[in-house]
């Protein structure tokens, strides 16, 4: 009786795909192809090089050394970051640590300091500190917030009823943590660890400054000495393979499980653990972390600023660099967010296998290190499209490839909050599909788009590797100027640039923290 009407109702929305969605899909596919350009380039370069030369260039002791360095760096840094991230997230979210909110902010703030500024700060204090120990130590302070952020959000989302239930089944508190809490943190741990790992593979400035060789630093050395050596391409190939290993590991560890809480209703607020007399011992952890992650940069920067005096603030140069940086951040941020709109809309409104696959392409493309993206775009423009070499268009494309997921995450969240009925109402009032989309969903998703622009700008501001290789002639961003000056051992002269980068990154970092709280529902 009712079955016919029910069938009609469920089929109706799918029957006519609005013309807008086919256009959106086309644009999304084009952007995905552009994003996959660097990866395709590396594969093409390998084929062109020929197996024999390729094998010769890959299986040599230099590559072996770099591989050992990279593996040691990743294997040491990620577990330390994970332990630090879980401990800090637990202390700030689930214990009565004095000033938990304050510490929570401090745990995110290191992200406002570019990784190579961390490095600069450490060798400013300990000039002899280099090699693997320095690489691990500085990486931990620079990147642990990537684990802290998702972990603290995950702690807020945990349903405390599960922990009560486990206790009623006879588990002591530590066993509850190990068997119920930790498994539920797995998604956050895997995601955060992947992010840290990819940053370790991609980072140039941090490791170059402490003379620790990784694939990225080696590729840049190679690039600067021979310009387009085949050797650089083969190093890039190995680096890409390393990224794939990380991606594969993360995918297999993450599993397919759903961790959302079952059943209706709102979760009770988590119970807050009483630290009692351990309170002051526990305070040591965030305090020591903050001392290294924030105290060291603040100390070094203020020392150099005082030593340099007013003389280091050459207003013409600093002002120009600031202006150029802001311009490129804004252009890059807008372009990245605009490029993310089609796929964000598709993944919310038309979640099909195709849109999920496309989304995967964007994430894969953005996990390619900046040096690989830059190397690919340099070679392609020089060989095939010389007018585009070192043009604004090329560098913006590099930023789109590298930072699109940042814009995608914020956009998707805010599009999902706009009810589809509003879009349909606009269509019923005579707007064309594209027009309806623009007038309703896109308009209402504006706050998410703004956050997307801000977050990708944060990435662009602190990006050094690709910017250096791709920036148009005469461009000198804050990061580039800072790097050039430290290269000339003018640490005092570099300080104002670092201070400006931190000053402009701080509000964006806080936005990131705020957004992660919002996504977690608080």
């Amino acid at each position: 009786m009712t079955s016919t009407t029910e069938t009609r109702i469920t089929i109706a929305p799918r029957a006519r795909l609005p013309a807008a969605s086919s256009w959106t899909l086309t644009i999304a596919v084009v952007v995905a192809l552009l994003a996959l350009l660097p990866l395709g380039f590396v594969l093409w370069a390998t084929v062109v090089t020929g197996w024999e030369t390729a094998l010769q260039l890959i299986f040599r002791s230099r590559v072996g050394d770099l591989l050992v360095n990279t593996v040691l760096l990743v294997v040491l840094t990620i577990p330390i970051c994970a332990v630090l991230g879980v401990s800090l997230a637990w202390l700030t979210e689930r214990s009565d640590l004095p000033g938990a909110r304050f510490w929570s902010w401090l745990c995110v703030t290191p992200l406002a300091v570019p990784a190579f500024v961390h490095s600069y700060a450490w060798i400013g204090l300990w000039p002899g500190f280099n090699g693997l120990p320095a690489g691990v130590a500085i990486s931990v302070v620079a990147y642990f917030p990537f684990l802290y952020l998702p972990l603290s959000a995950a702690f807020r989302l945990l349903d405390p009823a599960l922990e009560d239930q486990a206790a009623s089944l006879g588990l002591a508190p530590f066993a509850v943590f190990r068997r119920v809490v930790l498994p539920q943190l797995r998604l956050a741990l895997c995601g955060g660890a992947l992010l840290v790992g990819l940053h370790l593979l991609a980072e140039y400035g941090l490791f170059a400054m402490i003379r620790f060789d990784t694939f990225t630093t080696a590729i840049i050395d190679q690039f600067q000495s021979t310009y387009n050596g085949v050797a650089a391409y083969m190093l890039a190939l190995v680096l890409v393979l390393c990224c794939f290993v990380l991606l594969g590991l993360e995918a297999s560890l993450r599993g397919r499980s759903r961790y959302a809480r079952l059943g209706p209703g709102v979760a009770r607020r988590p119970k807050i653990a009483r630290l009692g007399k351990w309170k002051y011992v526990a305070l040591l952890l965030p305090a020591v972390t903050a001392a290294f992650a924030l105290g060291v940069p603040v100390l070094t920067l203020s020392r150099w600023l005082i030593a340099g005096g007013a003389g280091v603030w050459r207003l013409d140069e600093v002002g120009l660099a600031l202006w150029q940086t802001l311009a490129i951040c804004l252009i890059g941020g807008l372009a990245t967010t605009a490029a993310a709109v089609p796929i964000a809309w598709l993944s919310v409104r038309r979640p099909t296998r195709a849109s999920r696959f496309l989304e995967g392409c964007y994430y894969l493309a953005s996990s390619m290190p900046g040096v690989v993206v830059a190397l690919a775009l340099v070679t392609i423009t020089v060989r095939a499209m010389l007018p585009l070499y070192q043009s604004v268009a090329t560098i913006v494309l590099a930023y789109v490839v590298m930072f699109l997921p940042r814009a995608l995450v914020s956009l998707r969240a805010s599009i999902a909050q706009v009810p589809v009925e509003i879009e349909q109402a606009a269509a019923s009032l005579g707007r064309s599909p594209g027009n309806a989309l623009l007038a309703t969903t896109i308009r209402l998703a504006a706050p998410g788009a703004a956050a997307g622009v801000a977050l990708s700008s944060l990435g662009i501001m602190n990006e050094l590797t690709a910017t250096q290789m791709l920036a148009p002639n005469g461009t000198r961003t804050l990061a580039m100027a800072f790097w050039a000056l430290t290269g000339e051992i003018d640490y005092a002269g570099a300080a104002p640039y670092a201070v400006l980068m931190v000053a402009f990154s701080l509000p964006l970092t806080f936005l990131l923290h705020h957004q992660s709280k919002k996504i977690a529902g608080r």
Partner: protein
Amino acid sequence: MTFLTLTSLRKQYGSVAALDGVDLSVTAGSRTAIVGPSGCGKTTLLRLVAGFDAPDEGCIVFAGQQLADARSQVPAHKRGIGIVAQDGCLFPHLTIRQNIGFGLEAEASVKNARIAQLMDMVGLDPAMLARKPDQLSGGQQQRVALARALARKPRLMLLDEPFSALDTGLRAATRKAVTDVLTAAGITTLLVTHDQGEALAFADQVAVMRAGKFAQVGSPREVYSRPVDVATAAFLGEAIVLPAEVADGRAQSPLGVLPVDDIAYRGKAEIMLRPEQITVAQNGGDGVFATVAEINFCGPISDVRITLGDAFTFRIDISSRETLSAGDRVTIGVAGAAHLFR
């Protein structure tokens, strides 16, 4: 034999008293239901017994051991008390087998045998063991939650509205299954619910809770037919409350002279009848005359409003086989004694 004793338990959340002095004793092997509207403090009471929260005042004694008072508490994991929560609260990251075996400490073969036995006990297909909780229906999840709690052979089982998230049909079937399993295992049970029908059907002892206190504790029959006050009467089911003049076990009321269950009382009082004591007859018979003011057909029964002159009006459900219409004159008969509120 008293198995669980709660003595003047108090628990304050901010300025709100969730529990305002609760006393209860539960005998071994019995089933007790705590029933009350939402927010009356019944879940808080259960959380204190389970050991998830600590009381501000009062104490909990269980099988001769003091579990909690204001100063010290035995932690939840050392109490040996099982709990089944409203939504089952299965661990989403574990399979059904791992969920049921969660609290079991034994070698694999013993554990698997026990898990199979528990699945059989709660009437679930062993093929489900490899599934994740989100692949099960609500009723199945509740059975798994029960099996998981039973696995440790608890001496006391707490049920926190375990049936309220289920559909009406499934609710009765699941309740029956759970009751049978618990009875067969001889486990003392404490059920918390806001559904008075469920409480009356489930328990040997019912505690009616209101604003952090027990209004009445007694057998289901006692609290239903001899409630302490009008609010308790109305909470446990439809109640027709009449003003009356009482003397020598007889009450002069708008429904005529009725026997009451209190022969000592004299004077004005309120008396209560349950709807099943009342008969509505169309063609004469014993009783007082009344008028049908309004009738709503609801399928098998009809909801009728009856007035006795201008003084008194009440609603009652009658079988739809009676063909009444508004304005009809009817005779109201009463069976059994009315309950008197002192």
